[in-house]
């Protein structure tokens, strides 16, 4: 029932990839979604599936075994997966997020060393910026990286790290110069999780995206080669912000997917469920909800696709587009999933139906990769800067 969405603006390749991922999502991912949520176990089987099908290779250059897809294509895949299972869509979104600092700032040697494993999907990579006391205020991170010859010694803790316990690589942001200004204190490193001194100290119990392990990581003088530093010393914060400018559409795509999944479930239910002698979809109050859900979802989708195109073409206000699409899509997902539960009534509140899970999953899209409040700050600052 979603076949007709936005055909006009997509290329043949984008449409073919979206349709293929959608088929896979419907046939292989959707049947696993409830169990992944209930057991809160990382779906290793689906990681393998995404790797085998080349889906995890989408964001990576072809010369290193990837598919060299543009941002919109990556988002189409995240959207299609998330319509079935937000946790599974997040596997690709996090793979992209964790890799972006490497793709944006990595040398040819670093790319050659790390990207083939990431593109084949045999390696997962996490993005470790957030700390217990440095969330929205990301520049306040305290993890230290102290130069020691040809290596750095990393010491500190990271929190809320998606897939931190299943990744073999982690992009870590750490303070290299405590005396520099807020934006020049930090550098980025690719850390191999097998390194001595690295440990996963806790996994969070969460409301949604329960199959995606959210880890607390500890670094106890973990030795990282200087050759693993991305960009120059002190470039880390700017690199993190450039990464988020490009990664937030992935979360918007996850949100649009969740919203579409909930809308599809609600529309199917409204056509089947009979009360007062007819399908509840024949009642105008229900029709109104479904129409509003569709309008919100489609509006978010079109904004997302536009944002992807703007960011891909190097728009100077890429950060604004990125924040706009995540803000609108995250709010759409929350509203649409809430209404989907309403359309299903009491049944919607049961775990026998997918919409309560989708409602719980939707909430995270308003929180991570910058809260909705942070998105508004990014947008407003872009507006005010352009007025000066």
């Amino acid at each position, binding site marked *: 029932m979603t076949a007709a969405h936005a055909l006009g603006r997509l290329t043949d390749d984008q449409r073919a*990839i979206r349709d293929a991922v959608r088929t896979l999502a419907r046939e292989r991912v959707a049947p696993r979604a409830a169990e992944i949520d209930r057991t809160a176990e990382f779906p290793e089987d689906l990681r393998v599936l995404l790797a085998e099908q080349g889906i995890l290779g989408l964001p990576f250059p072809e010369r290193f075994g990837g598919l060299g897809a543009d941002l919109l294509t990556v988002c189409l895949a995240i959207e299609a997966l998330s319509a079935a299972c937000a946790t599974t869509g997040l596997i690709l979104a996090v793979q992209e997020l964790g890799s972006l600092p490497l793709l944006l700032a990595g040398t040819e040697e670093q790319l050659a060393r790390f990207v083939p494993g990431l593109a084949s999907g045999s390696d997962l990579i996490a993005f470790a910026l957030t700390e217990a006391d440095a969330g929205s205020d990301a520049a306040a991170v305290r993890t230290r990286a102290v130069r020691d010859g040809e290596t750095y010694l990393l010491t500190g803790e990271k929190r809320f790290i998606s897939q931190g316990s299943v990744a073999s690589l982690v992009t870590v942001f750490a303070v290299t110069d405590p005396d520099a200004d807020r934006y020049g204190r930090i550098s980025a490193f690719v850390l191999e999780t097998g390194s001595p001194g690295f440990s996963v100290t806790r996994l969070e119990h969460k409301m949604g995206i329960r199959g995606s392990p959210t880890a607390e990581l500890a670094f106890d003088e973990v030795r990282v080669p200087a050759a693993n530093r991305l960009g120059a010393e002190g470039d880390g914060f700017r690199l993190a912000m450039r990464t988020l400018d490009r990664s937030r559409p992935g979360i918007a795509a996850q949100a649009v997917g969740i919203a579409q999944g909930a809308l599809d479930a609600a529309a199917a*239910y409204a056509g*089947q469920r*009979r009360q007062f002698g007819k399908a509840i979809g024949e009642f105008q109050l229900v029709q109104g909800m479904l129409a509003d859900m569709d309008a919100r979802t489609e509006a978010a989708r079109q904004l997302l696709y536009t944002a992807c195109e703007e960011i891909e073409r190097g728009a100077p206000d890429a950060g604004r587009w990125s924040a706009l699409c995540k803000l609108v899509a995250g709010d759409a997902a929350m509203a649409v999933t809430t209404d989907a539960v309403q359309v299903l009534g009491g049944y919607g509140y049961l775990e026998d139906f997918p919409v309560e899970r989708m409602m719980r999953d939707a909430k995270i899209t308003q929180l991570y990769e910058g809260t909705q409040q942070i998105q508004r700050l990014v947008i407003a600052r872009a507006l005010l800067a352009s007025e000066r």
Partner: protein
Amino acid sequence: MRIVVLLKPVPDPGEERLGADGRLDRSVSPVINGNDEYVLEAALKLVEAGGGEITLLSMAPAGVTDPIRKALAMGATRAVLVSDPALAGACTWTTVQVLAAALRTLEFDLVVAGIDTSDGGGGVVAAGIATLLELPYLSNARRIEPFEGGVRVERLSPAGHDLLEASLPAIVSGTQLLGEPRYPSLRGIMGARSKEIAVRTLADIGLADRPVGGAHATTAMLDARPPASRGSTRVVRDLEPAAAAAAIVDFLVERRAL
């Protein structure tokens, strides 16, 4: 091994529609015939294990290429599509002659085909081709493996299976016991765009002046009609199992059947 897979685009089962002329409307969501997808998978495994290439051979209206493109994305090397306006309304005998003539223009060691098709169901095309080309025919395969200079097939039988061997070239018709077909990978999908689908007319395969095609059908369709409606049937689909069960219970409760 050079393998030709006979691949028929068919309307998505359950979505079939009769056109105004009483014939099946072949433009309705065409997919790869189910059994053919399974023999294609078996062929892909043979080639992956022992090398070689796979040519798809189809007879279909010119516009029906999506299923062929999907089969190329799954890993077939190239495709030959015999397409000619004169073939509209072709009978099974024409199909046999056309595919046999097309095979004469191709180099192959093995031809594989699904045991039957979801839209026709005759199940005789592969046998007919084997007869015309005078090739060994091994039917109802649940397993296909190479064997020095030949092919070995486990043929499904009421008692279990028969073990058959034949020299090459040969024709094998296969069942869904061959194993689940793969999903095309994204790389396969991108790569399939540049693979060749060679379109051949009846003239191209040397049948221009032969009595084949709709005008020469050996069987005539006198009437076609959809099955009679069974009253106010409601089909529950597009719901997850728990939701579908609840919808059925609602239905029964509403009629006081529960």
